[in-house]
């Protein structure tokens, strides 16, 4: 892996381990990630026994050259955006580890596990209360949003 920057080297390692030992229901598009290591697409399956059973979601991860010091930009994309109190209809996710509580010891795998658990613990499928306003006014990059983490229960 000579000639790679430290962030590329770490991302290559993460890609390999996610490919070999993915968390249940999580599949990374390896070809796409190998074309551009700074942008990944991950398929996520709704866990059986939860409100999202049988659903398929797509997550997009964008990394900056400062990864892992800088958190990845993570959004749901595609036709099926999960209906969840912390997921806006434009795919933005209100999850503190993606901004304020990010740590370089976290990884794509741990972010995926957090999102799976966030979905799995949901009791009622609904959009965030401010969805319409947020989606109209927000920046394209969810990291530019000053999130207010008000609810840890789901």
């Amino acid at each position, binding site marked *: 892996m000579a000639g790679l920057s430290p962030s590329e080297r*770490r991302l290559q390692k993460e890609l390999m381990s996610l490919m070999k030992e993915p968390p249940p229901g999580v599949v990374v598009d390896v070809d796409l990630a190998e074309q551009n290591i700074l942008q990944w697409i991950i398929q996520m399956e709704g866990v059986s026994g939860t409100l999202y059973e049988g659903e398929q979601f797509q997550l997009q991860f964008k990394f900056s050259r400062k990864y892992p*010091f*800088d958190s990845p930009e993570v959004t749901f994309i595609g036709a099926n955006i999960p209906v969840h109190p912390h997921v806006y209809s434009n795919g933005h996710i209100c999850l503190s580890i993606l901004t304020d509580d990010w*740590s370089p010891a976290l990884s794509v795998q741990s972010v995926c596990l957090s999102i799976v658990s966030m979905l799995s613990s949901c009791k009622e499928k609904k959009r965030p209360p401010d969805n319409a306003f947020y989606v109209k006014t927000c920046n394209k990059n969810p990291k530019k949003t000053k999130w207010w983490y008000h609810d840890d229960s789901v």
Partner: protein
Amino acid sequence: MGNCLKRATTDDISLLRGSDSVRETSSDQLGPSPYQETLPIQAASPVYHPSPSVTRSVGQLTEEEQVKIAKRIGLIQHLPTGTYDGCKKARECVICMVEFIVGDTVRYLPCMHTYHKSCIDDWLMRSLTCPSCMEPVDAALLTSYETN
């Protein structure tokens, strides 16, 4: 809390071992090259991160941010460093995800989590927390002074 960062001479000397400048780059380092900020063009002007997601050049820092960063630099210098000796407890630097090699320069946080010196310094310059346990490094350092 008083201004205790400047008075290095009265502190425990063992903590000051290898307390070289935080921005210094060690070119003679062997093994995996841990993280170093790569500055594309304006390499001469260092950038700072008052918080992990904020990047500013020296000229853009507010006075408050300058103080914050100066305190950080002072505190980082008080954290012990050493050379990786093959200790089985720490095998991999979780920041670069590269296994430690005997001889690597490492830094120990008060919570005893160990990282490559350049990897953790790069993070501590953004946030004074341990990446693994999220313990605030400054509070833990003060506690370790009191108990020892």
